[in-house]
């Protein structure tokens, strides 16, 4: 098997000088695929993703993007390398309009952004309708769309989503997942952390079940859903 496009290889580390939260945890995603990290609360799912994005102090392990070692780059530099991150909370500029939010996503770009803007509006038609409203006036689900749209504006090669469906209704969640699949089809790799394990694994090419900062199970989403042990422990039967 060829090397995955993005890999966080045997990562160990924690925040600042605190204790290690991750213990030799490996997360990877192939080009144009969806990788999902699931697991119980406090398992270090978000932490693992932040480690891949450089928001954590690593003691061991390395992060490689397209074969290049980026372990020592700051999150900002990783953005320039083609990684986009959508945090779980306060992931929009609430006092800016929807369109300004998207423009800020493309801040590093010097070329014409109107094409990408049109693509984002095509993906999330509701945003085009509300492009002159401030993001703070939108509903939770619409705000998540703004957040994902902002990240897409950087034309990333990897899109990282921290619980994109937290706090949105099941209908909106299904729609967001559909959009995420669409994004992956355009060749962008997606790495996301999800609470709604079952739905997330259904769309995942690759699934990671994490427990206490370690990889517990790693397989295709389908296989994990079928695995009786995973079902019993994490998916509620």
């Amino acid at each position, binding site marked *: 098997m060829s090397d995955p496009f993005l890999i966080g290889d045997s990562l160990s580390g924690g925040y600042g000088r605190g204790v290690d939260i991750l213990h030799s945890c490996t997360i990877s995603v192939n080009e144009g695929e969806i990788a999902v990290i699931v697991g119980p609360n406090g398992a270090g799912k978000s932490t693992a993703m932040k480690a891949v994005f450089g928001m954590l102090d690593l003691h061991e392990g390395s992060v490689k993007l397209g074969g290049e070692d980026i372990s020592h780059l700051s999150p900002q530099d990783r953005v320039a390398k083609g990684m986009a991150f959508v945090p779980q909370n*306060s992931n929009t500029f609430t006092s800016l309009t929807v369109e*300004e939010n998207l423009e800020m996503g493309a801040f590093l770009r010097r070329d014409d952004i109107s094409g990408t803007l049109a693509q984002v509006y095509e993906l999330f038609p509701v945003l085009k309708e509300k492009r002159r409203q401030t993001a703070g006036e939108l509903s939770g689900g619409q705000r998540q769309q703004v957040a994902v749209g902002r990240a897409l504006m950087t034309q990333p090669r990897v899109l990282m989503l921290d619980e994109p469906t937290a706090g949105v209704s099941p209908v909106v969640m299904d729609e967001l997942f559909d959009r995420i699949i669409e994004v992956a089809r355009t060749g962008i790799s997606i790495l996301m952390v999800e609470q709604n394990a079952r739905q997330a694994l259904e769309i995942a090419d690759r699934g990671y079940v994490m427990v206490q900062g370690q990889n517990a199970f790693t397989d295709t989403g389908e296989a994990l859903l079928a695995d009786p042990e995973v079902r019993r422990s994490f998916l509620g039967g």
Partner: protein
Amino acid sequence: MDLLNAIVAFANFVMLPAVAYGSQLALGALGVTMIYGILRFSNFAHGDTMAFGAMATILGTWWLQAMGVSLGPLPTALLALPAGIAATAVLVLLTDRLVYRFYREQKSAPVILVIVSMGVMFVTNGLVRFVIGVDEQRFADGARFIITAREFKELTGLKEGLAIKSTAMLTVVVAIIVVALLFWFLNRTRTGKSMRAFSDNEDLALLSGISPERVVMFTWIIVAALATIAGVLYGLDKSFKPFNYFQLLLPIFASAIVGGLGNPIGAIAGGFVIAFSEVTITYAFKKVAGYLIPAWEPQGLVQLLSTDYKFAVSFALLIVVLLFRPTGLFRGKAL
């Protein structure tokens, strides 16, 4: 006729001075609010930054006057203004590099930065007095009035005169232009939008690749321009005295807080609220009252508060707003 006289007297002694003073406060408060919104601390050195900007402009004006340059009816200070802004920008950028950046890198609490800014205030304060002295300086030239009280009386046949000082008019016109430019910059340009984004959500701004040092630099340059313009307009309209600028700090902060810290529209509104309150409350209404109620002959001046206490007005308003609406009239950030 008496009603007209009352209106003219009110306009002459309350409206016009308050509009001019309000414009000056609004420009000052805009600077304070921008520092608060983007650098996240209350900049106590702002009054003295204004004094420095005004001083630099005055030195330039004197030089131009000595060279025989003049703008005709407009004050020569307008010509020296760009140089004053440039000098002030150099000062604040240098201060940022030498002082504030250190604390920014330490991620110091805002309260520490406030104390640091007080230190900067004292140094700037001393610098200005060292260069230009503590005395009052006059640098206004050009036409003093657009219309004098006597001309107005002859023109309208009213008993009361309405004098429009050219500096007051200039203040309002310049303030409108500056505010329009500032809002255009913040809402229409890439850099301006990135400054708003940075003020809104610093972490997300970093994730979008917005460079904090660039945002901070632009903020200081804009603040230097706002402070210098406000300082020069105040100096032209009243007179330049370093101590006055130190005292302006209270009404300026009151304006920014009353309007809502971090909110530019709030800063402007706050400036006018404070200015109108101050002027109205300290104005002796005897004359106006005399026209409106001829039968009433008041014993005193019908003045709510002596002008000596004008700062008490901003202070009282500040406290009332902080007690009942801490985010200000336009929902800025809570203190």
